[in-house]
């Protein structure tokens, strides 16, 4: 335990009211940026295109284009 008052850069300070900040990530918890994140996202295809499944989980295939040669412009 530090004795108070302490000197920080020549300024007298009292006891800290907060705990020292820690990195927010907890080891073992999956990070959004972790490799495989894109592949595991539904509706995002390996070639960089996407389908309506990207935007909705309800009857997504009915929102895809009616012909295969049409671009899949998924809804917002």
């Amino acid at each position: 335990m530090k004795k108070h008052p302490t000197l920080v850069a020549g300024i007298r300070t009292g006891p800290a009211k907060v705990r020292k900040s820690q990195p927010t990530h907890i080891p073992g918890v999956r990070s959004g940026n972790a490799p495989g994140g894109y592949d595991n996202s539904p509706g995002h295809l390996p070639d960089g295109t996407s389908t309506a499944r990207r935007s909705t989980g309800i009857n997504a295939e009915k929102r895809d284009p009616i012909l295969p040669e049409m671009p899949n412009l998924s809804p917002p």
Partner: protein
Amino acid sequence: METIKGGNGNLVDMNWDPITRIIGNLGVYTKIDFENRRVAECRTTSSLFRGYSVFLRGKDPRDAHFITSRICGICGDNHATCSVYAQNMAYGVNPPALSEWIVNLGEAAEFIFDHTIFQDNLVLVDFCEQMVKETNPGLLGKAEAAEAPNAALHGFKTIADIMRAYNPFEGKMYQEALRMGRVTREMCCLMEGRHVHPSTLYPGGVGTVASPQLFTDYLNRLLSVLDFVKRAVPMNDDLFNFFYEALPGYEEVGRRRIQLACWGSFQDPAVNDYRYQTMGTWGRAMFVTPGVVVDGKLVTNDLVDINLGLRILLGSSYYQDWQQEERFVTRDPLGNPVDHRHPWNQTTIPAPQKRNFEGGNYSWVMSPRWQDPATGEMFPLETGGGPLARLWSTALSGLVDTPYVKATGESIRISLPKSAELPEVVFEWKVPKWCNTIERDRARIYFIAYAAGMALYFIDQALGEIRQGRTRTFADFQVPEEAVGVGFHEAVRGVLSHHLVIRDKKIANYHPYPPTCWNASPTDSNGIAGPMEDAIVDTPIFEENGRDGFKGIDILRTVRSLDPCLPCGVHMYLGKGKVIEESHIPTLGLNGRMKR
């Protein structure tokens, strides 16, 4: 309140601390020679310690863009973007092209937004009818008689009509600019999720869902902004040219040797891979070309040279030196030696003390300088408020070539297509003769047109990606055990760099260097004055008021031309112990003013 030393002989102390109509906490202390109508001495000071570089240490680097965004309440997204660039380099991740176009669109909207409100609602108040009436009544008489050369484009018959359009709260352009502020912020929110602190910018890409509607919503708003821009540019030109004509010698106000810095903006995903090794190449491909311009000549546009030349000096700042502290990066990823005074190796050790203008320390701002690798000369570079350096550097490099914006080597041509009310217009910004107050302000309005033109190009590119079906906006990455990264970007008011060192997957060192650190830096250990000090010293005084009614308008115009980003109230000290306090109440308009 601090006691200020009285005037020395004919020199009178005139001090503004803090300066209003800017963001932050800036004081300007001058000695004015009323007999010869010039500023004899100047010191710029900031009384605010931030400490981002202190408390970022030990944090998860993936939080850096969310934290550094809070550095500023007006250009936070510039910090977030710059931090993302630095992180991309450190993580070795290359985001998909569409995400880069989205970031560029968000940043273009920010440039239009911030420059518009600063220029029309804050800077031009210094040039409006009411202010000119109070400071140069003779000039207002001339303005009433002077016809506006571009009246056919903007609809204001005389220069005095233009000045009236910028009167706060009542003027037509003042009110229109406020409306534009709303529209352009909506544009930024579409791309970055939120303004000013983006919620959808991450290293590796963006979380924005890229649908065709996103871009058409943006374009719809942009077209309404184009009408405003097409009127504002000729209005500004008419007004500023009038000052040159009606007040011969006004070009000397705020003039200093041309020493400009631009770190580049708007990445080109076709070239950029975020590797340090190729930074020179992808830096030149940016849609605002980075560069150091000295005496009107381009010294370099290579981001590696720019990076290695950075030096953070002390001399008048409240910090202890870090020469005895750890050196984090001895060589850059290309093997070049990195100086101990470089931001990668800086350790911030605050040393609070009493302000001392007489040979002591007087500011919390450090003194960033740039050392020319060829000559070793150390330059106190300025940003010219942002746009002046950006346009100058881009024009001289002559690399930007898009259907809407083209750099010619000595000018920049901006073509804005037909919009809701007005036909196609071509503007040309030509490299000016001087780096002074008027040219810094003029460049700002041209850069709004520049950003609008680039936004049109970015929409074309983004919609091209969508039509190909390429809707990917993010890429995966892992945080390395050890890495270094640097982000170069432009905050609205000029150069912005973030230097990052990662160890044990945590931030070991992080130093953001925003534009006002450069512009409002104090005199350094070599005795070289900071850019704002340099620009104000020897500025001639054109104000017609004498010592008792003195407002210091020429000095304030110079300070605001640099768009300082350091909060508000006015305390004005007159020499010999007389103190006038003046507070403004915005809701009461021009007459909302109390003297105590």
